[in-house]
């Protein structure tokens, strides 16, 4: 019951956020210098061509009219057609978004697989050589620009050792996973560094909590103490951070997708900015915002499940 009302409230809170983002996107893209026609036909366009195209797209109408027109369509669930690709935006999103989602999900899994055990090792052997080595390595990962990490991984694992394909997406699900491994790893590196840092700190904090002593005083086995008492409590704060980061990653996959030639939503987003593809840009930003909000919501629910104190 409480959970349901909690979710409902969160969903209601999302509405103003989405509207805000919607308006900002709408205004912002129209403030961009250059118009779709310029972006599309480039240097050889004659003024007449530009006028004709802008008229076809309805871009010669006043902004408020365009806005109302767009709102009207969006309410009916129609995100319009891409100017450059001449396809429905919904179709495009349906093609591209799953790629990014899969990549992000894989990155999340890789990050967890890297961060959680190492955070524990680091926390349990605080200040040891292992701890410092782990922290140092992650710190370096965190300090490197994403495109740089990507290029290095590509050069080493794909070009030199040919263990992984050089980007792309493949056709079957296994191929997708295989192709997306390196890009996901790239994304995962900085994420895992952030998670590791946070988790290590919270494991240390939790280990000092009295209930851990009390658990030991009960004569529980150390594995039980570790998994039931330490891990779960330590994860609580990390989960929030994790959700926040995943949200950021969804919108920040652009660079990785370019380096690895992954046909995902991030690249579509950038292309739509540079191509002044207003409908795609608007549709995609809003879709991403909804997705990110849902990620946050899921995070909160998961956190509420981990920590019964949250759901009031």
């Amino acid at each position, binding site marked *: 019951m409480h959970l349901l009302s909690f979710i409902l409230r969160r969903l209601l809170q999302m509405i103003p956020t989405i509207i805000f983002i919607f308006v900002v996107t709408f205004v912002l893209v129209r403030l961009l210098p250059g118009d779709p026609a310029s972006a599309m036909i480039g240097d050889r366009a004659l003024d007449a061509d530009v006028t004709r195209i802008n008229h076809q797209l309805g871009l010669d109408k006043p902004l408020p009219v365009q806005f109302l027109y767009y709102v009207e369509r969006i309410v009916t669930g129609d995100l319009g057609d891409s100017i450059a690709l001449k396809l429905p935006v919904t179709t495009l999103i349906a093609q591209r978004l799953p790629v990014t989602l899969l990549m992000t999900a894989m990155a999340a899994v890789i990050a967890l697989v890297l961060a959680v055990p190492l955070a524990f090792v680091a926390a349990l052997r605080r200040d040891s050589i292992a701890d410092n080595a782990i922290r140092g390595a992650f*710190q370096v990962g*965190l*300090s490197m*620009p994403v495109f740089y990490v990507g290029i290095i991984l590509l050069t080493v694992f794909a070009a030199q050792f040919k263990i992984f394909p050089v980007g792309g997406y493949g056709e079957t699900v296994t191929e997708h996973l295989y192709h997306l491994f390196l890009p996901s790893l790239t994304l995962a590196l900085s994420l895992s560094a952030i998670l590791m840092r946070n988790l290590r700190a919270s494991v240390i904090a939790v280990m000092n909590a009295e209930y851990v002593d009390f658990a030991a005083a009960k004569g529980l086995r150390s594995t039980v103490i570790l998994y039931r008492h330490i891990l779960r409590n330590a994860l609580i704060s990390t989960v929030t951070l994790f959700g926040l980061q995943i949200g950021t990653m969804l919108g920040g996959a652009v660079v990785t997708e370019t380096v690895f030639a992954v046909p995902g939503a991030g690249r579509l987003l*950038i292309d739509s900015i540079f191509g002044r593809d207003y409908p795609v840009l608007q549709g995609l*930003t809003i879709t991403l915002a909804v997705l*990110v909000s849902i990620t946050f919501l899921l995070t909160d629910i998961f956190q509420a499940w981990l920590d019964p104190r949250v759901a009031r």
Partner: protein
Amino acid sequence: MTLQDTKPAATRRLALSRLPKQPLSLVFGGLLLLASVVLAVVPQLFAPYDPNAFDYNALLAPPSAAHLFGTDSFGRDVLSRVIHAYTIDMQIAIFATIFPFVFGTLVGAFVGYYGGLTEAIFGRVVDAVITFPFLVLVIAIVSVLGPGLGNMYVAVSIVGWVFYARLVAAEVKVQKRLDYADAGRVMGYTAMRIIFRHLLPNAITPAIVYWMTDMALAILLGSSLGYLGLGAQPPISEWGVQIADGKNFMNTAWWISVFPGVAIVLTGLGFSLAGDGVAELLRVKR
């Protein structure tokens, strides 16, 4: 009388006894940052060449005694460019974060102190900002305003202050429930005095620590934008631009992009270690 006498002695003793006990991370981070700042302020003292001088006889020369880090496709000395880039990258670190830090802290202090409606409105703003794809926003704003570092600062600031405000607001909310804030109110102090004299000094630590990380992030973002062509404009040397320049030469002239990469990592490391150290240093002793 005794008061006057004891004060300097006491502080001196404290300062001396504190010195060797500085957190190790602060020492390392501080040294790295200090080096970075020195290079940023007087690069010409360390750079062996003019960073923008072409040398057609030494295009893409590998590292050698003459060019320790080699040269790039224009025959420019990579070492000199890496060193001169400190100026611009440290400037990015500061200029991209100073406004968010100051403004965000102020907003956070008020939101945290007054709560209620301000907090509700602020909550929505935070939601909107963190749900919006950050890079898109920055790229769009930079495109609207035109490329270049100045506009990048504007773009980053429009978004960045929210994170500081959130941190400070949360901490102020914690602090204002402590008795010393109430004590101030009972003493009849004004809200401004309580906020700035009492709450803020105690609530600002997380923001300062985040600031350190944020400066490192700003350098990374600056590089990414430089890489996309939206950041620093040639011939200014900036690490991201240098890496982008060297990208096509990864196989044939690795030195063009590797050394700026190392500089980014080292500076990032410096900021992050210093952040840890500052957190330790500013921890309130209870």
